[in-house]
Structure formats: C-alpha cells, structure tokens
C-alpha cells in the first residue's frame, strides 16, 4: 500500500488530497489567508483525519501552487503547470490543452499524450482574466456567483463591455444596472468579456483538442458556455472537484517519486 499527498497552495484557497495507490481517499479545502504555512499544514491534517490516517502513514508529499515554498513539510515541489498537466492527462487521457482558471491566476497549458508540457502561458498580473473578475462583478450585481452563472445562460443579448480593467468594469456594471439592462444580459456580457480574454491567452499557445477546463471557475456554467462559444468547441469539464486537479497531479507525482508503479 502506498499513501501519497498533494498540497496545492493557491492565492485564495489551499487544497490537500490523499491518494492510496493512486486512488483518491480524501480531500480538504481551506482558505489560504495570510499565513500560507498554517493553511498548508491545516489542510493536510484535515485531509489526513478524513482519511483516518497519520502522518507516519504517508510515503511522499508533493507541494504545488503559488505558495508551494511555504509547505515546509513537503518532500518535493512541482510547478502549477506541471501538476495540472499530470492530473489532467491521468483523468482525461485525450486532453491536449489545459485551461486552468483560478482566483488570481489563469494558465493555458499544451501537453502531449504522456502529459509532458510542450508550451504554456500564464496571466498573473491582471484580474480581468481570472476568477476574481467574475467575483467582483457578482458583488457589483449583488448576486452570488452561482446565481450569476445560471442567469447568464438565460441572457438573450449581450452588451459590449468597454472596460478592460476589473476595477473599471465594476463601475461599468453599475452604470449598466442604472441603464436598466436586464441582469441576465449583463451577466452574459461579463462572462463573454472574461472568456475573450482567456481565449486569446489560449490561442497564443495554439489550441489542440481535447480542451479541458479546470480550476474553481470550472464550476461556473455561464463562463463555460461563453468559453465554448468563443473557442468554437466543446470543453471537457470535470464533473466534480475541478479545483483539485493540480493537487491530484501533485499527489500522482508523489506516487511516482515514492517508487510504486
């Protein structure tokens, strides 16, 4: 029996996942907050207790994510790009392009059939192409992200958004509300604006089918629809836990390192 763990410390959330012979036996998600060290340890302990395991039972721990350096108890580290690619190809073997949209970063990764990274592009500078964009827009609309996703599917006509910047777009959304544009149409436009930004990043590395969408934003139905329309293809979207793919990939690499086949 081989037990391995993957810890993914993101800017917003930290995730831990425990594998037993490459099968998921538990996961945990906590807020990263200020102290990433604490968040990493806490999520790890939480996942262990869910799996009824002790630290001694674990053969190898891999850390990934923006705060991977803070996982002091890890045995190894892997970039977010590497862990996402590994997890993606293991779960969906036909994947050649991975789009990972997190809270404060988005990535497009081109991989081969073995999950080897061929090329990638990252946006970590501008909120307009990340999950925080839709989050702040939903705040401006005073509805939840889930509601906004569902509403946007009912939108019939989108309005062009002029603002590129997430901060300015918030003001623009407020003026759209004042102009009495139906909220469904505003929601649709918001997702389209975000999708167009992420698509152009994906196009930079070249799109190859199949295309997999992961990260917390993969829960957002409105965003998925907008991306599919923009890229003119059907995306693969994990049925559950799309935000755990990187932690899963890290735990798989941990299993490789631990030597079990």
């Amino acid at each position: 029996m081989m037990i391995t763990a993957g810890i993914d410390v993101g800017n917003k959330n930290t995730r831990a996942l425990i594998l037993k012979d490459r099968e998921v036996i538990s996961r945990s998600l906590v807020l990263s907050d200020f102290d990433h060290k604490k968040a990493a340890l806490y999520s790890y302990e939480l996942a262990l207790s869910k799996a009824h395991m002790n630290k001694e039972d674990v053969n190898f721990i891999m850390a990934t994510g923006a705060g991977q350096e803070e996982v002091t108890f890890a045995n190894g580290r892997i970039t977010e790009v590497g862990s996402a690619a590994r997890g993606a190809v293991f779960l969906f073997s036909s994947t050649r392009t991975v789009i990972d949209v997190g809270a404060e970063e988005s990535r497009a990764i081109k991989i081969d059939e073995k999950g080897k990274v061929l090329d990638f592009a990252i946006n970590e500078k501008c909120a307009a192409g990340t999950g925080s964009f839709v989050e702040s827009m939903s705040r401006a609309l005073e509805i939840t992200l889930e509601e906004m996703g569902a509403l946007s599917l009912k939108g019939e006509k989108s309005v062009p958004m002029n603002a590129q910047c997430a901060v300015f777009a918030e003001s623009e959304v407020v003026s759209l509300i004042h102009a009495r544009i139906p909220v469904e149409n505003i929601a649709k436009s918001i997702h389209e604006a975000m999708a167009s930004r992420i698509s152009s990043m994906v196009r930079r590395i070249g799109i190859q089918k199949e295309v997999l969408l992961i990260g917390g934003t993969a829960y957002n139905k409105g965003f998925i629809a907008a991306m599919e329309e923009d890229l003119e293809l059907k995306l693969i979207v994990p049925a559950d836990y799309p935000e755990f793919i990187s932690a899963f990939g890290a735990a798989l690499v941990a299993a490789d390192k631990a030597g079990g086949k």
Partner: protein
Amino acid sequence: MPEAREFWRWKEYNWKTPDFDWKDATLITAGVDVGSVSSQAVIMCDGKLYAFSNMRTGSDSPNSALNAMKWALEGTGMTLTDIHCKVGTGYGRINVPFSDRAITEIACHARGANYMFGPTLRTIMDMGGQDCKAIRCDENGKVVSFLMNDKCAAGTGRGMEAFAELLGVSIEEVGELSLQVEEEPPPVSNTCVVFAKTEAAGLLRSGWSREKVLAAYCSAMAHRVASLLNRIGMKEDFAITGGIAKNVGVVSRLEKELGVKALKTNYDMQIAGALGASIFAKDLAEKAIRNK
C-alpha cells in the same frame, strides 16, 4: 486580526472661510466633483473660495453629489437656492441632480489647478482613486492636451488603500512611513489593484518590513505616472492634484524621478476638479447675465 479600525478610511471634512460673509456676495457659484472614490463640493463667492467639503463617494452617485453639497453648505446658513449656478464634473457628473451643466473633469481640473497654483502652471498630474491624468494647460487654465490611464487601475489610490489596510497603517501616514527605509527597494511589479492585497502579503511573508513594502508601492506608483508625464511632455511649472498629492512618499519619489519640483499650495489638492467646476459655473452665470 481583532483590530476593528479601518486603516484605509481617510477622514472626511468640510471647511469654510473665516474671511468674509456670503451674504455680501453678488454671485454665488458651486462645483461638485463626483469621483470614483471621493466627491468634493466647492462654493465660491464672486470668484473667491468660500467653502468646500470632501467625502467618500457612495454606490449612488446622485446621493453622493447631494451629500457633498449639503456638507459644504453646513453651518453657512446658505441653501441650494442661494447658489446662482452649479456645475457637475467627475466620473459621476451626469448624475448630479441639481447641476445646471456637466463639464469633463479634465477641463475642470486644469481650470481649478490654474486658480490654485497660478498662471505659470503648465503641467498637472492628477492622481485619483482609480485613474491618473496628465494634463497640459495654458496660462488661462485651458487644456492643451492630456493623457489618461483609463485602461488599467494598477498603481492608483485604490491599491494604496488596500496596502494601508493590510499593513495596518493609516492611509494618511503611508507617505511618511514609506520614507523610513535605509535603502530604496525595487518597485513592486505593479500587478492589478485587485491583487494588491495578495502582493503586499507576499512581500511581508518574504521578510520585508512594512516601511519597505510601502516604499516599493509608492515608487511603483511614481514610476507609472512619470512615464505618463514623459509621454505628454513635461513642461514647468508642474503641480500634482488629487488624493495622492497628499502622499509625500509618492510625491517626493516622483519629483526625484522627473528631476522637477512640484508647486506647493495652501489649497486642498483634492478639490481642484470641484473648484474648476465652480469657476466654470461663474463663467456661465456671468454669460447668462450679459445675455439678459
């Protein structure tokens, strides 16, 4: 973090001149500048500054305009109907319910800065809550050209508020504190305002002191607007307006980078837009009288 204090929140205030009584004036005009973060109202009597207010803009522009106006009027005995002409400006200018005219903030800023700093002023850097404008003007405060950063809010007042909040430093003290570093750190990478908190937290985690983090943000901000000024072509005299003009950490670094000193004034640098609007209101009122 049990501290309930809100470090980003700057004090709102109003002011009234002790020098003269509005009842002696023949022409009373007002300007209201509804910005993205703050709103100001200015009242002038026969072209002289009489009273003003400076408040945070709420989510409702018409209300913010009215509140700023009410607060400027407070304690004066004057009411809205005593004012002969009112001009609205700023990002929310079309939502100033009581205004006779809306004029762009670029024109108002130049006009107001000309009044505050005098006719030798040629270049103005307005550093506000959400955007930055470099304005070139002539000796009458007429706009010659301008450049505006309206694509991206990185390095604006909003980001400074986020930094102040996370570091637990009151926004008024940021500038002074940022100067208390032995060595100037490299400017922070200037990522999106939305990520300002994450960025500051990352720097603190890597062992930077609060002062060093603030110094890096102030210098990033100065660097950003310096490039805007270089593009428009710097011509002296030079002045800075807007909320950031009160931040000595940004101002001194910008002066150093440009090799130019900014003019000083006893006027409140945040009221330039509203002041300009009320001067335009005076022009409008005088024109109306002449045409009668």
